[in-house]
């Protein structure tokens, strides 16, 4: 099977390890990964900040870049949500390439829950708002994590509360965003986990920024990186 990877602008520029892990994981599962280098960004940042007109060329370019592929996989629920729900409204009539968030692709298309990973850590999982409510990935990420060898999964209290990121919300409303983040960080600490995972690098950058500020010793690791890990 051949898939195109939409790596997302944030992963490309800020956390390439998430993209590398996604490639390694998919290749290990026998999938041929292609990375069309014409890709840039899904345009969500623009759309959600009120610049839908500026997002339109990005939406068209996304469709053009990925239309040759039957499957597009992305390690971001938020970007997948924007592509699936916002792209059709931004450019009416556009054929939007079928795009899967990583856990959806693994569970629904490949039909695997045990990806053969090993990860020796105590992990708590934050279901990001867009994975939970926009895409409805449900417990797919948890099913994948439960099959990872040596991984101790601990439940995050109030897990469905937003971490306070929300794109430009974090800088337009820094006080509220910071207060929401403080609550999320407190809940993570309650679990005693040393790793907080999620399916969105953006939310993880926010949560990780809060954990790092407190020098708490808890790290954020993307779901793809855990699933790619074999040692």
């Amino acid at each position, binding site marked *: 099977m051949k898939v195109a990877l939409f*790596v997302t*602008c944030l*992963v*490309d*520029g*800020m*956390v*390439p390890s998430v*993209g*590398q892990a996604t*490639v390694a994981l998919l290749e290990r599962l026998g999938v041929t990964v*292609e*990375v*069309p*280098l*014409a890709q*840039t*960004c899904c*345009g969500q940042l*623009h*759309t*959600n*900040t*009120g*610049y*839908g*007109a*500026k*997002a339109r060329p*990005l939406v068209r*370019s996304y469709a053009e870049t990925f239309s040759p592929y039957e499957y597009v996989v992305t390690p971001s629920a938020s970007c997948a949500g924007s592509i699936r729900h916002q792209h059709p409204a931004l450019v009416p009539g556009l054929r939007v390439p079928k795009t899967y968030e990583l856990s959806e692709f693994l569970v629904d298309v490949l039909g695997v829950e045990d990806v053969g990973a090993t990860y020796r850590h105590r992990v708590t999982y934050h279901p990001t*708002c867009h994975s939970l*409510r*926009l895409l409805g990935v449900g417990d797919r990420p948890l099913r994948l994590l439960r099959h990872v060898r040596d991984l101790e999964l601990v439940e995050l209290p109030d897990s469905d509360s*937003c971490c*306070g990121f*929300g*794109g430009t*919300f*974090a*800088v*337009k*409303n*820094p*006080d*509220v*965003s*910071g*207060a*929401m*983040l*403080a*609550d999320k960080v407190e809940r993570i600490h309650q679990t005693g986990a040393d790793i907080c995972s999620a399916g969105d690098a953006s939310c993880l*950058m*926010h949560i*990780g*920024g*809060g954990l*790092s*500020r407190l020098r708490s010793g808890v790290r954020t690791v993307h779901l793809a990186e855990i699933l790619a890990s074999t040692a």
Partner: protein
Amino acid sequence: MTFLGMPTAPPGVGQLRGDRDFPTAARDAVADEQLRRNLGNATSTIRGKRANVVAELPDWAGLRAAGAAIKDDVLANLDSYLPQLEAQVVAAGGIVHWARDAHEANRIVTGLVRATGSHEVVKVKSMATQEIGLNEALTDAGITAYETDLAELIVQLGHDWPSHILVPAIHRNRAEIRDIFMREMPDVGELTDEPRVLAMAAREHLRRKFLSARVAVSGANFGVAETGTLAVVESEGNGRMCLTLPRTLITVMGIEKLVPTFADLEVFMQLLPRSSTAERMNPYTSMWTGVHAGDGPDEFHLVLLDNGRSSVLADAVGRAALHCIRCSACLNVCPVYEHTGGHAYGSVYPGPIGAILSPQLTGTHGHHDPNASLPFSSSLCGACFDACPVRIDIPSILVHLRAKQVDSERGGAPSGQDLAMKAAAWAMRSPKRFSIAEKVLAAGRIIANSDHRITALPWPGSRWTSSRDLPEPPSETFRQWWARTHGGATQ
């Protein structure tokens, strides 16, 4: 963000707009730790209860869809339902008044009370009369309004304004309520802060008003076009006292509160109590149709209020905000509301629904209009849409209003945000430019600390680093790694 020809709610009357933008007002609210504790406890309790009573209904999704469909029909056919309601109310012996805006509604109600010769009215809890500032207008006319809903009474006696649609005094704890009662209620004596003691004091205070008042003012949860029936849904029974004891009843109802038929109430009477108080059924539902000799008021006036609603109706996307049945479910699940409370929104309609309703009702006038900041007061987490019993897609409407706000500010000098968005879009339109931009970003490595964190950025980056670190940009981007390891095989 104003529609030509459709008047928005006028400024300077009522409470639909604060005097500070949301981020500024929210900063103070977030710093109030007592407020955050009160709100956090109250909202998390009701969130859990609501989830339980919703989960026990097997057809909740169907009920929501029905509620949304009925409201869609109402909004599409107001031009026939409103005259039908008017005709039915008149046929049952009521009198109907049409109010273009808050000024007109206040004038009508004030005139009606004056005509009775009374100098006081008792009030049923009502968002519409809070919206138009009726109490203040009555005071100016020498008429005293007594709020009879316990929480509204606390707000009124505290010279305060509501911070929640259903629980307007949610920002007050019982010690504060005790102080307010002892200060404002004559002859109340010494009180403890036990809820029962406070409730009994309020009861004694209010009973005197119920028995002496000759005029009552209410809002309406629903108005039935088919029959001319008005409905008020409440918990305390104080509303029913007001609706039945006085000689004259004046009801102020927003024009979107219609339902076409009596049978349609079946849907909303299941949706509303579960979504608002997390009850299967609310304790008191009062319905009345016109007047009946020897039973209840002998004079009934219905004031139909526009106050910007027609202008909301003109926006095909934004108009779904008028589906709202004022249940407060979106407030109770909103992480932003939970951290700021209602006052930060500046309007009697706070929380997610307020963020889409208030700016549409008032229109916004330029970047410095406090209501222009409301559509941005959300992380778009989507909890509100999930909870809404009439399926208002609040996140999508927020995004729609953000775009309208940005568009309306075009023409002047571009803002920093305009320039940043333009530059980012330009860079991202081309993969070549994008990879150059990434190299510029990578230069950020020089400001990282030796432990690879960025802990302080100059403004506007300081708005991020005020409470979080930023990771050091990587030495190699993903596309550089791909080209190096996969030889750029797939272009």
